[in-house]
């Protein structure tokens, strides 16, 4: 093999089928984990009961544990993992920056600010909405700032995003500092670190809808994203509507990320690391990368959340801590590899 050549990349369809099977298996297995003493058989019987087949062997309360607590949580973890991973991949393509993540344009800082304000006002009911609006406001500010500097370019947008994120974070800290009383900082901290502890069926509805509505346009954009490989001029010469594609993909990604963050807080590293990991195996072509990274993201977050709620049973870690513990060393490895390649 000559230096620099590569093995044939594995067939995408095969990989997708395998990952799909692993995802289904993960859902089935993850739902059996938890501090309550319920056997896997009982868990699955309960699930089947709710799907319309057979009776549940569990008491109403314990059946509730399976169907109202564990099931929606596992499903939400899958959706959020998929959404964040895909958003990260798209952001990295749009900004041509391998260190981009879904939160780059102020999305997570804005969502955090919205969430913290609502948590402190005691109106936790509208938390997802407040977080989503916060994300959109931050995005709007980022784009306004980027355009005020002249023509909008990827690097300007990233810089504007950094500025807006810093501002939103500062405001969040200020709000916490001035108004937090007693131990309400605990809830806030848990949200800021990213947690799926509050995921019930409404969260499943929100995240699945977001995946369907946003996911389809994103998956269709695979070939177009590939055309960005050599920059805007090259993409234009290849017939791509650079501005239009960039704006619409950005909007769709922002909506997707905003929906995810509103449900689970800002879970880090999923959108940053997983696209790179999947690229290592299937290469950079987005028609393969996007669907596969979604599957990998779903599987990853299901198990990260399972670990988060099982490792220190009965105490729960916010899942953002688990993804950070896994993600940070992997990120360092990635950086080292890039320096070696460069």
């Amino acid at each position, binding site marked *: 093999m000559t230096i620099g050549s590569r093995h044939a990349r594995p067939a995408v369809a095969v990989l997708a089928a395998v990952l799909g099977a692993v995802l289904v298996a993960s859902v089935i297995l993850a739902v059996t984990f*938890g*501090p*309550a*003493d319920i056997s896997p058989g009982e868990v699955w019987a309960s699930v089947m009961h709710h799907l319309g087949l057979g009776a549940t062997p569990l008491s*109403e*309360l*314990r059946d*509730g*544990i399976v169907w*109202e*607590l*564990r099931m929606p949580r596992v499903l939400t973890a899958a959706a959020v993992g998929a959404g964040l991973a895909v958003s990260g991949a798209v952001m990295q393509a749009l900004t041509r920056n391998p260190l981009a993540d879904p939160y780059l344009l102020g999305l997570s800082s804005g969502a955090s600010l919205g969430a913290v304000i609502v948590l402190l006002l*005691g109106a*936790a009911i509208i938390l997802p909405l407040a977080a989503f609006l916060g994300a959109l406001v931050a995005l709007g500010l980022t784009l306004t700032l980027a355009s005020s500097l002249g023509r909008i370019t990827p690097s300007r947008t990233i810089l504007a995003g950094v500025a807006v994120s810093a501002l939103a974070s500062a405001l969040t800290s200020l709000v916490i500092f001035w108004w937090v*009383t*007693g*131990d*309400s900082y*605990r*809830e806030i901290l*848990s949200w800021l670190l990213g*947690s799926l*502890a*509050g995921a*019930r*069926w409404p969260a499943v509805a929100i995240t699945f809808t977001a995946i369907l509505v946003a996911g389809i346009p994103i998956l269709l954009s695979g070939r177009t994203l590939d055309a960005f490989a050599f920059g805007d001029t090259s993409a234009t010469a290849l017939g791509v509507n650079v501005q239009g594609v960039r704006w619409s993909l950005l909007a769709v990604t922002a909506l997707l990320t905003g929906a995810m963050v509103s449900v689970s807080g800002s879970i880090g590293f999923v959108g940053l690391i997983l696209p790179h990991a999947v690229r290592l195996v299937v290469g950079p072509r987005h028609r393969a990368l996007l669907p596969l990274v979604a599957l990998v993201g779903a599987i990853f977050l299901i198990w990260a959340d399972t670990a988060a*709620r099982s490792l220190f*049973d*009965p*105490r*729960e870690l916010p899942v953002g801590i688990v993804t950070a513990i896994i993600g940070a060393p992997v990120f360092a490895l990635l950086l080292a590899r890039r320096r070696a390649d460069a």
Partner: protein
Amino acid sequence: MTTRLTVPAMVAAIVLLTGCSAAAVTAPPEPEGDSTTTNCGIEVSFSNPQRVVTVKSSTTEMLLALGLEDRIVGTAFADGPVPEQWADAAAGIPVISEKVPSEEAVLGLEPDLVYAGWESNFSADGAGERSELQSLGVDTYVSPSACQSLSADHPALTADDIFAEISEVASIFETDATLLVSEQRAALEAVEPISGDRTALWFSSGSDTPFVGGGTGAPQVVLDHLGLTNIAAELGQAWAPFNWEAVVDENPDVIVLVDSAWNSAEKKIGVLEANPVTARLDAVVNHRYLVIPFPASEAGVRTIPAIVELSGQLRELELE
């Protein structure tokens, strides 16, 4: 927390030095010289403080219970209103801050002692580091039950620890707490634990993840004396995060709700009822709640009265 009190030893030494006679042994100790103790790992000595700044309700109320309101020059970071019986006494006390006071605000009152309810109140951006205050001639004291640094392997809090704390504070201020302590002891002994094997959850805050009373602090003391088994007793901290699945699995008979201005009992009931699984808990369906105000939920002079009060609430639930 369970600090070795050198004060009784010193009292004994003073008595011996002033002459061995039967009369001397029974006479009240003479307030003379400094008292020294180890508080949260730091050796501190006091000279009958006259100008005290208290941080948090637990410390303010401790001094009010000992009748020492005249010595308080300022308070900060109250967790709730002072109980009725001390309202008049507390009326004249200046409030420096709603939250942790700044070091400058504290020093501006020229105190000789800062008495804090949480160890974290003594930080550079709070009331000031303990060493710094000491070097400026201001003594510092933390409620012994709140000492974090000693929590690694010290045994769980007991009622005796609380009485010892009251006595220690009294001796620092060179006053007498024997009456107060014996009253509280008697009240505690009069409380009959509920019969049967009843379980309870001490729900302090949180919605997605409940923050509960664990096995080693004031909540455990209260539940023990009420005769209730704490479902989160395995948690080796005074308060710790828990999870709803475990709560539902245990299905506690009673839920203790900590009531505060920022997180009321009503709000917690709302959280329990909004969660589709906890809404089906026996305690929630049948409204078997005990309510305790936040300042009384931390170890201190209100713990025993709280036990008495909750015992009454528990009887009314008619669980037996």
